[in-house]
């Protein structure tokens, strides 16, 4: 990549972000135009199709699967049932609604893909918000933020944590032992922020309508089969990779979507075309375009080449490097998809640790797992930065984009600044708490 192409990549990306942030143009159109510009300028070519598919294919498949599953379930009446139960549990209190959201979303997102979870829970959340007579945008944004934060609770909670953890040979148990507490703190720190950031919802108290017997489900077999397809999808999320012929989460989402469409077709409740028409294609196009733009940035090699700069600037002060990474990767992840950021950062961090002689040269080899304890907080800082940085802006995580897309489909547009009002303070506080956690961890592991 020539210097000119590096400047072009950065310039185009900055222009797209600015256009979205200043609300100058529709975000999907802005991202698509940016991608076209990179193709026209020769930054992106046919050789990039593989790397883009490798990174974008999984998240897009997860979203498509989740959208089809949610759309199929929408006509069963199940969301209404669960929504009514949730509404009763809130007792008409906005405060309890928000707290219950954390209690519901966090454990689910500790194991299931974040954006898919947001899609599946959105109809329930919107239903409760409407019943409580509050704007559903704030609860939807909170749901996205919880889902991103809860990705830190387990090694498999977020692709970024998994990518970092697996690259240093960290087991599920080791993760629970060293990282999960920090993840829990990131989720819990949301609670004291709720009365401030979500004041309108927090203060709401509404009398609930008297309890009525639930409406009977019109097509119980259809509902059962649709739920069955969701069950297959979730089961494959959890155990698919351990099957003799492994099925990863993206493939599980596609299997679930295909089965759901089969159920729709066979049940003849509505045409398959109607389900596919209701998929949020705009969100999918936007994310696909963003992944293309990120490939343009990754291709510059700027991030990967920073290992020697880190060594020159900080030598073997690993704690300082961990904090710089936490903030730096957090900032980058608030604007870029965190998977490619983490993938490129891993090369940088491993290179830095080798250059700083914290590990032998084999530390750069895939599969190397003999990391000294003193280096582990550096990787943990990366996990926190990559995961929590996504809370910062609308385009920081696919769950945010999906939440905004769902709001738009319900007639409430969420702009970049709308999200920023909630996301930025949350991300800043979470990163600060994580910095404290990483510092304590560094002391303990020294």
């Amino acid at each position, binding site marked *: 990549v020539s210097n000119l192409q590096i400047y072009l990549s950065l310039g185009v990306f900055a222009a797209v972000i600015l256009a979205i942030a200043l609300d100058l143009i529709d975000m999907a159109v802005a991202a698509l135009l940016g991608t076209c510009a990179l193709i026209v300028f020769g930054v992106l070519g046919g050789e990039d199709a593989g790397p883009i598919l490798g990174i974008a294919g999984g998240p897009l498949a997860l979203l498509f699967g989740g959208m089809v599953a949610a759309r199929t379930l929408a006509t069963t009446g199940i969301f209404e049932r669960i929504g009514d139960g949730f509404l009763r549990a809130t007792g008409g209190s906005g405060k309890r609604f928000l707290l219950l959201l954390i209690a519901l979303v966090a454990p689910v997102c500790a194991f299931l893909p974040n954006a898919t979870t947001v899609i599946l829970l959105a109809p329930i959340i919107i239903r409760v918000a409407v019943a409580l007579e509050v704007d559903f945008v704030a609860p939807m944004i909170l749901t996205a933020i919880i889902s991103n934060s809860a990705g830190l609770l387990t090694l498999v909670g977020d692709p970024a944590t998994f990518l970092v953890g697996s690259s240093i040979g960290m087991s*599920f148990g080791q993760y629970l032992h060293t990282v999960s507490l920090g993840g829990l703190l990131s989720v819990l720190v949301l609670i004291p922020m709720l009365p401030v950031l979500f004041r309108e919802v927090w203060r709401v108290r509404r009398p609930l309508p008297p309890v009525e017997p639930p409406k009977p489900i019109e097509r119980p077999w259809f509902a059962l089969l649709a739920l069955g397809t969701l069950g297959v999808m979730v089961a494959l999320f959890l155990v698919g990779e*351990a099957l003799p012929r492994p099925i990863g989460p993206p493939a599980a989402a596609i299997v679930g979507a295909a089965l759901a469409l089969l159920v729709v077709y066979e049940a003849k409740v509505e045409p398959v075309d109607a389900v596919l028409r209701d998929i949020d294609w705009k969100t999918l196009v936007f994310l696909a375009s963003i992944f293309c733009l990120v490939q343009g940035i990754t291709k510059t090699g700027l991030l990967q*080449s920073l290992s020697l700069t880190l060594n020159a600037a900080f030598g073997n002060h690993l704690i300082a490097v961990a904090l710089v990474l936490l903030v730096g990767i957090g900032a980058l992840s608030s604007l870029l998809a965190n*998977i490619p950021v983490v993938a490129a950062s891993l090369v940088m961090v491993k290179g830095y640790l080798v250059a700083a002689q914290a590990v032998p040269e084999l530390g750069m080899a895939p599969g190397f797992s003999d990391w000294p304890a003193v280096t582990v907080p550096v990787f943990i800082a990366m996990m926190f930065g990559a995961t929590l940085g996504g809370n910062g802006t609308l385009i920081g995580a696919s769950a945010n984009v999906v939440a905004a897309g769902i709001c738009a489909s319900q007639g409430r547009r969420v702009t970049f600044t709308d999200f920023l009002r909630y996301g930025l303070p949350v991300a800043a506080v979470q990163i600060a708490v994580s910095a404290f956690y990483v510092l304590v961890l560094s002391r303990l592991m020294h």
Partner: protein
Amino acid sequence: VSAFLARVLARAALLGLAGLVPLSSQAGQTLDGVKARGALRCGVSEGIPGFSERDAAGRWDGIDVDFCRAVAAAALGDAEKVKFVPLKASERFPALQGNAIDLLLRETTWTLGREARLKVLFPAVLYFDAQALMVPAKAGVKALADLDGATICVEKGTTPERYLPDYFAARGLHFRALVLDSSAEVAEAFFTGRCRAYVSDASQLAAARLQAPGGAQAFVILPERIGKEPLGPVVRYGDDDWFTLVRWVLFALIAAEEVGVTRENAARLRDTAANPTLRRALGAGGGYGPALGVGEDWALKAIESVGNYGEMFERNITRVLDLDRGLNRLWTQGGLMYAPPFR
């Protein structure tokens, strides 16, 4: 449960999440980058006489440096279009993997571990080295056996630190290792008499004794060689086109020596040589330049810039380090330097 989770994680890792990490490059990417940048970025040492060292005027010299210039000449048509990036030993692979350099030439040994695990490739051997022992000339030590029970200085993390105990033990000999963090500390310890011998690559010992108090003649390198240290250029995994070009630049220099093409006569031979294969190789047309992604006269440019392999060796190793060619002689003279045919 933990076994199950371990299996899940291992599978997922194998399924390719690790593959997202851009450790490798795509074919042709490096050469395209070099051309677009108009300069080759070559990672070299911070200063090892004979291999890569800056003179008083700031100009780089050495066999590693010359080879960088030859590659730049082949790729860009100009041997001066090289940006030398001085690197510590620990920085060389991060620099290569992090794409901070296009080519690494820093006295780096070709090993299976580096190719298989680090995912870097060694296109060919530029210098066949081996570990050796250096002792004060006046000590009267003639062979390894004379060092039984001696204290030997060795740099931490180097090959001899691991293999010297085995080598001595296999011969029923004993020694005490004085392990120090850097080559500079080792040299200082040795020259101040803290140990009787200094073990390292023969080329490194020859370079170290150039700065020895009392002059290089005050120290001798014992004739025994311990293990193999084939040193060569290193490229990133996955860019076959770049790998091929770097490899064949070196072969061109070796083949030139074999057929008597020198810095002085190369251009003339391109036009007048009776052998059509030689003329083609030197860029008379119908050669493999376009297939390599460079000009037809790539080999001529490389030879004209640094001379053939023998000229390069003589200028940097023989004259500077006073080491004979040993295994680095041409195969026709009992050495290991051999280039496949240019057809």
